[in-house]
């Protein structure tokens, strides 16, 4: 039996890349900015893996394009944005997630009703 903290980690493992692609959908962002966007939407990575290796993989796989630009007058930052391929990956990933979530909800919802009755 996976303890709850471990389960959250396992669940995040499968969807964190999707979440990164999703927050990039709001516009190009650098690493820390994406962490902030995730946090604003209620997803904290404290106690979880880092997004940086994930960003590296997304870039290597061609799902994101990058460019360097100054941010608010500060030093140049590396901005990540969705590529065409990334947009397609995001769309299919959302479909996969929603169908998986619906199926799991159906199973767990039923179990919850049985437990509480």
């Amino acid at each position, binding site marked *: 039996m996976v303890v709850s903290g471990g389960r959250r980690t396992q669940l995040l493992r499968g969807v*964190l890349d999707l979440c990164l692609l999703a927050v990039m959908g709001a516009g190009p962002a650098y690493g820390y900015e994406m962490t902030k966007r995730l946090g604003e939407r209620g997803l904290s*990575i*404290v*106690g979880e893996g*880092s*997004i*940086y*290796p994930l960003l590296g*993989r997304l870039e*290597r796989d061609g799902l994101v394009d990058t460019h360097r630009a100054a941010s608010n007058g500060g030093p140049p930052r590396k901005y990540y944005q969705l590529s065409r391929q990334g947009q397609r990956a995001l769309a299919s990933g959302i479909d996969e997630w929603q169908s998986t979530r619906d199926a799991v909800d159906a199973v767990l919802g039923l179990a919850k009703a049985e437990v509480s009755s």
Partner: protein
Amino acid sequence: MSRFVEECRKEWGRLGVPDVEANEMAADLETDLAEARTDGVSPEEVLGNGYFDAKSFAASWAIARGVVRLTPLDRSTIRIRSLLLALSALVGGVVSGVGLLILVRPRFGSQAMAVSPVGRRFNRPAPSIVVNPHQFLFEGPGSGIDPLGWTLLVAGLIGLVVILWIWRPWSSYRGGTGFDQNVGMPSFL
């Protein structure tokens, strides 16, 4: 440069990450951590668990970006080290196996004395040995050479533990970082 970023730089240098890439990653990390500090955000919130293991974090990031370069020399060194470690492990296993065999062998001590009546005996505290021109036979009910068996067994096992101890951190430098490069999370989770 923060200590965390310095440690990452060292790891990238050791992994043969080109300076251009290492500089870029270090700069991005440094500016992100500085901005987080200004916002009152802890490094852990930015780096997740990676903050507690700079080497693994740096290695997984570099591998994920595909910028780790192992030279032919590295590969050759890895092969030689692997071979040496495997041979050492084999020797350790054989030594501890011999020790174990000595400890669990059938006890023929009294027969040994009977078949070597003309043997010359060296009186040593333990083990005492009976010598004849053709063979060495250990004297007594077997307890006399138990120390030898124990010594070999313990020495062999210690050797194996030491080899394992050397192998673990070293093996992590071969590309397996203990960090899941695909998702940026510790692979043991």
